[in-house]
């Protein structure tokens, strides 16, 4: 390797490390602040970087004020509800759109594409009015409701089914499988990676959803809405705000660090096909 190549390589790492620091500093600052006292957090002269002792007080105080166990459960149910419904309905519809020929298919698929082109806020008022009329505000059902079906997921799964070879299906049919059996035993298992991708994509965006939970639920809140509400109440107690943020972020970050490959590929391959 020439000296020039070596210098280039070092330069690249320097750039990447600088960017990494920029990406990590907010998270580090969140952690450090959560363990400080209010005095340490707001001390300017001298500026305190590390807490003198690592205090868990802020975590204790926020968990006394916010029922984190319930917030975790609500968030989990929101995510599970949307993932199960979205993957199930999109797998079925994706197979029909990708592999079957029937009258009305193209018209129906154009509705799917149409949904993907309009900004999501246009659905929100009518969705709210529907949930409200059903008397289901403030329930887990309300949280899951807008995500029961997914146009985007249907599109994603259709692409996956279209990529499968045709002979498999014909062989299954010759063996006497009907369409339902062919789908269930032969074709669906082959799109497992797309289902996982859609599942992760749905989970992350359900977790990040803020406006809908704010609107539909005042009591049965997921983490995102609870954080927003908390900020309104304790505007300036930064150690507490950071402790609550950390408690809200940690489960998803831990899952991400364990399954990083699936997360990145799931979100990117889904997003990339949008």
């Amino acid at each position, binding site marked *: 390797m020439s000296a020039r190549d070596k210098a280039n390589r070092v330069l690249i790492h320097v750039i990447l490390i600088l960017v*990494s620091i920029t990406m990590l500093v907010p998270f580090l600052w969140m952690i450090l602040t959560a363990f400080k006292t209010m005095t340490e957090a707001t001390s300017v002269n001298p500026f305190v970087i590390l807490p003198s002792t690592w205090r868990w007080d802020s975590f204790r105080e926020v968990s006394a004020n916010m029922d984190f166990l319930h917030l975790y459960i609500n968030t989990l149910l929101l995510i599970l509800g949307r993932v199960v419904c979205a993957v199930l309905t999109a797998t079925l519809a994706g197979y029909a759109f990708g592999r079957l020929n029937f009258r009305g298919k193209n018209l129906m698929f154009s509705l799917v594409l149409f949904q993907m082109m309009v900004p999501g806020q246009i659905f929100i008022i009518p969705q709210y009015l529907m949930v409200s009329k059903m008397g289901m505000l403030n329930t887990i059902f309300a949280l899951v409701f807008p995500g029961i079906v997914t146009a985007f997921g249907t599109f994603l799964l259709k692409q996956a089914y279209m990529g499968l070879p045709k002979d498999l299906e014909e062989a299954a049919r010759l063996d006497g499988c009907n369409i339902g059996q062919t789908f269930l035993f032969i074709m669906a298992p082959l799109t497992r990676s797309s289902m996982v991708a859609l599942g992760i994509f749905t989970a992350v965006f359900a977790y990040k959803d803020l406006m809908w939970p704010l609107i539909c639920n005042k009591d049965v809140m997921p983490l995102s809405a609870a954080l927003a509400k908390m900020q309104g109440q304790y505007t300036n107690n930064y150690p507490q705000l950071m402790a609550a943020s950390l408690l809200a972020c940690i489960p998803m970050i831990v899952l991400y660090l364990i399954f990083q490959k699936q997360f990145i590929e799931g979100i990117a391959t889904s997003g990339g096909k949008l």
Partner: protein
Amino acid sequence: MANPKKGTSQARNEFIWGWAFILPTMLGLIILNIYPIFKTIYESFFKTGDFGKGNIFIGLDNYVKLFHDAEVWQALLNTFKYAIVEVPFSIAIALVLAVLLNRKMKGRAVYRTIFFLPMVAAPAAIAMVWRWLFNSEFGLLNHIFHTKINWISDPKIAVYAIAVIGVWSIIGYNMVLFLSGLQEIPRDYYEAASIDGATGIKQFFHITIPLLSPTIFFVMVTRVIGAMQVFDLIFMVMDRNSPALYKTQSLVYLFYQNSFVQNNKGYGSTIVVLLLVVIMIMTVFQNIAQKKWVHYN
């Protein structure tokens, strides 16, 4: 020879199974999405009565009000300002990072994991920590740079400060999309260019950018749409009584305030129809412009 009778029964089978399979999705889409589109447009011709009782048909009054509502046009301008920073910077930085990472190197997976991290954090938490970093008295940023800038309460710069958070949050996502696009560019192109003596930077502009242009175009279109819908960051970062709120609130923020705080769902619907029109115009415009710079093989 295909048996014609068997053919029709197969066709009928596919018809029945096909409709059975798409039925849940289509019912859901029609109830949750298609009907609400028309319902929202319909609502925009109504004024919501006090205490949500009774809608009063007011024709185009909401649209007339919209045209004369300085707050709405300011919000549209704010949204544009946000997008003008967020979209180009997040794309350019992500592109450079993707090119740097698109090789066999030590720590590649670690860098990718770190850059992507903001994607899995709750936006409310991200907004809170940035608010704290931006804090004019005790914030880390003013301390590091020895400045006294009111990042998020100075009306002149607040919207750009929020756009910086937007860039920071989305770089990793764009980068991963670019990385998968880069993997499809054949190595030979670069080898041939090296033999011809083209340097890294020349290769970037003459090989990478043109061959990656379909991916860049795709990311650009989706990022513009996403940026035009910015809400979470503004909702979480701005105080309700901040002097900079008027100069930072986005169209979607205004939609939320009108529909669910002031409870005028008719006017809220009108604002969202404006958003729909603006996004459609921008998307059509980008589709026309792409013919000049996107290369498809």
